[in-house]
């Protein structure tokens, strides 16, 4: 933990109003917002112009929009035609031309925008796209897990194979994400599983959603439940609405009544179906699925229409019979799966057992039997279903049969999965989720590696998989705001969006690096800083940050190179750097140079900071502490500097002092995640484990992605004999932890 803690904000070390020769100070000001320079920095950001007082977009400008009086639907029917035409005409006049000019010229300068209130109005709307429009962050373990999981869901549609509910590692999906997955997969599933029953579709969806811990009760239904009612509406509408001179076809009503008859027939048919198969027709439906699979070839031939008609009828019948029945929204399958995910069903000795579930729940028990009891369900499934299906699939689609998917799918889901699951069950319930997650992760890793996507070799910046800030109008500003708020993970995503958009933006890369550094990811920090350096090879802030990050990674040579580079390009100290040194840098030489520099300008805090870092490299902690303390006298407001001091003190076994330093840092920046975690480390070092737990929990509540901190927390919990909370720690249940250990 020790050296790493030095990074703490990387290079941003400044006090308000610090001299302009101190670029680090400027940055810190820009980020912390503690001086007038902040305002200057922010004003450079394009969209912030919009808040300027000299720009009067009153709402009334809307009235000047050509043809805008016709804008808002619903239009009155009788005016409509002319309105529309007028709108088009007025659009053809100046509006389109000016809009097009603007399009061609790019965003107009501010004065131009003022002359064109309608465009200004538009820009206001455009620029005000609130952050909430963007999906919330995917803030959790590997998104590729999700990606692969969704993939297998989509693939399951091909064979009509029941999709397994699967315990996944916590993905940290936000409510928005969950809603997205729920709504979209509900709609799409009805396309994939066209000739499956509504129950089957719901079962598939429930398996997906439960595995992702998504509340299925809000699941949107397909079009079917509403369809019949809608037909009624059409009916009434077509009866009631007189359309003078309209193009209404006269035959529609009769057509519709024909349909009604058809539907009525289907209803009758459905009843007979129910009689035949029983009201609770899942099992029989399942049989029928299998039958359908078996006859897939026939289906492709001619019977398809019949079968689909049957399915359609059944769907309608279900719709009619079940409209007021919560069956669709809360199918028994769903209950089973979600109970399992909530732990109400436990898996014990390869059997699914109800924890507190009444055994009279016939379906669940039936399923249990099939699943684990008398019938070796999985085996049966493998032998009966997969092979046959795979063969068939191969026959039917020769071109696709060599697709590794068939093999992979059958292996993964039918055999490996079962075995793996059994193994884990044998290992006990408590570690199960984790083990599984690891296994799944391993699998996913292999897959990803096989695809050749793992190019995350050292020094190459790896972008996040899914980034909601992509396409944001001004990700840099968003990133700066998020960084300032201490939302580092989100800031990273916003800044990634910025550098994807503008790869030449060294400021974006630099800030991205610092965000990573504060987020305890020095590898990514270094990669980002290197990109910043590519763009701007003499940027002092970047050079210093790289020096610090390499120090944290204990890479002395690289650290020395960048720190020397800093000296070389510094306007005040450039003369000190002797070119011949650059080829073979030795620690003593560099340290000597900086000592010289410190003598030249004893009031430059930056030099003292670099010296402190250098002494950390050589593990001369007393000297390092002295250097940082000197720097702090010059810059008492630099929170990251206090943190550096604390980390150095902790390294030199002065943990009690370190806590004071961290406290200073936190007073200056209350959401300084790293300092909270460091505080915990210092308490733990002194044997005050109970105390340390609180600080770890606080830091984790701010950044749950910090794996290190979770490990520290676990150690402290064990040492404090709080084994009762270990489970909460392992499941990363922050709510429980925060309740138990308030700070």
């Amino acid at each position, binding site marked *: 933990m020790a050296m790493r803690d030095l990074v703490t904000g990387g290079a941003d070390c400044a006090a308000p109003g610090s001299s302009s020769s101190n670029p680090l100070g400027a940055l810190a000001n820009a980020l912390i917002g503690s001086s007038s320079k902040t305002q200057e920095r922010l004003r450079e950001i394009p969209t912030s112009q919009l808040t300027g007082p000299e720009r009067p977009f009153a709402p009334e400008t809307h009235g000047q*929009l*050509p*043809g805008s009086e016709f*804008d808002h*639907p619903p239009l009155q*029917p009788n005016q*409509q035609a002319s309105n*529309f035409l007028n*709108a*088009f005409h007025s*659009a053809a006049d100046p*509006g*389109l031309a*000016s*809009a*097009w000019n603007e*399009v*061609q010229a790019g*965003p107009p300068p501010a004065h131009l925008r003022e002359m064109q209130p309608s465009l200004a109005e538009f820009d206001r709307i*455009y620029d005000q*796209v609130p952050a909430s*429009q*963007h*999906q919330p962050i995917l803030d959790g373990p590997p*998104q590729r897990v*999700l*990606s692969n999981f*969704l993939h297998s869901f*989509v693939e399951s549609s091909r064979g009509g194979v029941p999709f397994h509910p699967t315990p996944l590692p916590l993905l940290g999906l936000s409510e928005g994400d969950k809603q*997205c*997955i729920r*709504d*979209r997969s509900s*709609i*799409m599933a*009805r*396309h*994939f599983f*066209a000739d499956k029953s509504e129950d089957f579709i719901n079962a598939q969806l429930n398996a997906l959603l439960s595995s992702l811990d998504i509340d299925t009760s809000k699941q949107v239904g397909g*079009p079917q439940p*509403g*369809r019949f009612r*809608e037909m009624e509406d059409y009916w009434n509408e077509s009866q009631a609405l007189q359309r003078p001179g*309209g*193009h*209404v076809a006269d*035959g*529609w009503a009769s*057509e519709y009544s024909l349909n009604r008859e058809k539907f009525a027939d289907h209803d009758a048919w459905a009843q007979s179906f129910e009689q035949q198969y029983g009201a609770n027709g899942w099992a029989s439906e399942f049989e029928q699925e299998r039958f359908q699979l078996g006859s897939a070839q026939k289906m492709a031939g001619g019977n*398809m229409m019949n079968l*689909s008609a049957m399915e*359609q009828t059944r769907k309608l019948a279900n719709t009619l019979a079940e409209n007021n029945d919560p069956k669709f929204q809360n199918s028994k399958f769903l209950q089973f799966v979600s109970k399992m995910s909530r732990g109400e069903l436990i898996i014990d000795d390869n059997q699914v057992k109800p924890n507190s579930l009444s055994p009279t729940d016939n379906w669940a028990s039936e399923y249990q039997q099939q699943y684990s009891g008398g019938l070796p369900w999985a085996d049966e499934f493998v032998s009966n279903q997969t092979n046959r299906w795979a063969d068939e699939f191969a026959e039917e689609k020769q071109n696709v049969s060599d*697709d590794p998917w068939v093999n992979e799918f059958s292996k993964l889901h039918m055999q490996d999965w079962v075995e793996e699951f059994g193994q884990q069950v044998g290992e006990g319930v408590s570690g199960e989720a984790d083990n599984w997650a690891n296994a799944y992760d391993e699998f996913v890793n292999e897959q990803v590696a096989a695809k050749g996507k793992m190019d995350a070799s050292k020094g190459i910046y790896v972008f996040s*998989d*899914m980034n909601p800030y*992509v*396409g*944001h109008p001004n990700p840099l500003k968003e990133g700066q705001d998020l960084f300032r708020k201490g939302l580092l993970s989100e800031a990273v995503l916003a800044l990634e969006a910025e550098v*994807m*958009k503008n790869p030449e933006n060294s400021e974006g890369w630099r800030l991205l690096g610092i965000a990573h550094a504060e987020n305890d990811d020095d590898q990514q920090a270094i990669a980002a800083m290197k990109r910043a350096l590519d763009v701007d090879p003499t940027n002092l802030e970047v050079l210093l940050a790289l020096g610090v990050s390499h120090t944290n990674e204990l890479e002395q040579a690289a650290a020395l190179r960048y720190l020397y580079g800093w000296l070389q390009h510094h306007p005040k100290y450039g003369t000190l750097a002797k070119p011949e040194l650059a080829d073979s840098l030795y620690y003593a030489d560099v340290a000597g140079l900086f000592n010289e520099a410190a003598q030249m300008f004893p009031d430059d805090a930056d030099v003292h900071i670099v010296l402190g870092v250098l002494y950390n490299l050589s593990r001369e902690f007393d000297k390092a502490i002295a250097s940082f303390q000197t720097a702090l006298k010059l810059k008492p407001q630099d929170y990251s500097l206090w943190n550096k001091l604390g980390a150095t003190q902790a390294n030199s076994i002065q943990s009690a002092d370190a806590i004071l330093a961290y406290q200073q840092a936190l007073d200056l920046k209350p959401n300084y995640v790293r300092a909270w975690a460091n505080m915990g480390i210092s308490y733990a070092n002194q044997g005050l484990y109970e105390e340390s737990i609180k600080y770890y929990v606080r830091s984790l509540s701010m950044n749950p992605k910090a794996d290190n901190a979770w490990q520290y927390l676990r150690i402290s919990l064990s040492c404090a004999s709080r084994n009762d909370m270990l489970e909460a720690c392992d499941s990363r249940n922050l709510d429980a932890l925060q309740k138990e250990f308030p700070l």
Partner: protein
Amino acid sequence: MPVFKTPFNGYSVKFSPFYESRIAVATAQNFGILGNGRLHVLDLNPAGPITEHIAFDTADGVYDVSWSESHDSLLVAAIADGSVKLYDLALPPTSNPIRSFHEHTREVHSADYNPVRRDSFLTSSWDDTSKLWTLDRPTSVRTFKEHAYCVYSSVWNPRHGDVFASASGDCTVRIWDVREPGSTMIIPAHDFEVLSCDWNKYDDCCIATASVDKSIRVWDVRSYRTPVSVLNGHGYAVRKVKFSPHRQGLLASCSYDMTVCLWDYMLEDALVGRYDHHTEFAVGIDMSVLVEGLLASTGWDELVYVWQHGTDPRAP
């Protein structure tokens, strides 16, 4: 003909109406269920690989794209977050999108530029509405809300600049005249969701519909009690259908059965070609206006194919 690999799952492909060698491709991560999107503009080279001209990233999946009929560098993108975005290829990515309209409350599933008036375009969305837009307005000109479920596509009539058709999951297709207050025709086209529709380019009363029921039906809107033709042959839901700009009876379709099919609905044996080149659901298909017989398709296998009808799309 060459192939292009997109990082995300393909959703839609469109030939430029101005350049015979240019196509736009809409893509979405994780099959459009969750994640980012990217809009690619690709250049076809006579003897060489497909090259990327430019690409734009979006926060959510891009479900559809439509070229402007009035300006060769302008594109409309239908985004899954409910926004409609305009892109200008002549401007650098930093200046794009040049417009972003946020009115649809659900995923926008299609965009179609008016080929007759050339100054407006339509979008349709899972919020059950279609909307009419012009470039110079901050809000939509009109909202068409009659469908009872997702509207998957709305397409302009190729002859009449005020008429369009919309295909919906409520199993109907509606014909609209934007000068009329409501829809002018409701065609209960299929017993299952209708995913796509297109107008015949040579007969302004003829439309084709594609449905989850695996069939394509061709209709004469003057007498739509029974379809003119029912095209069976896809093994799963038919995702998109597109009439040829060059031959009256010819249409192309793509399906969740991973194939692209060509049909001539006027022939007894309607299926005139089947291409099995995609290894995942085929969801995007287009036919070049400028080069007869040139087809483009994309799918969830993250590949974009461009080929001449009659040749093997996978041939190197």
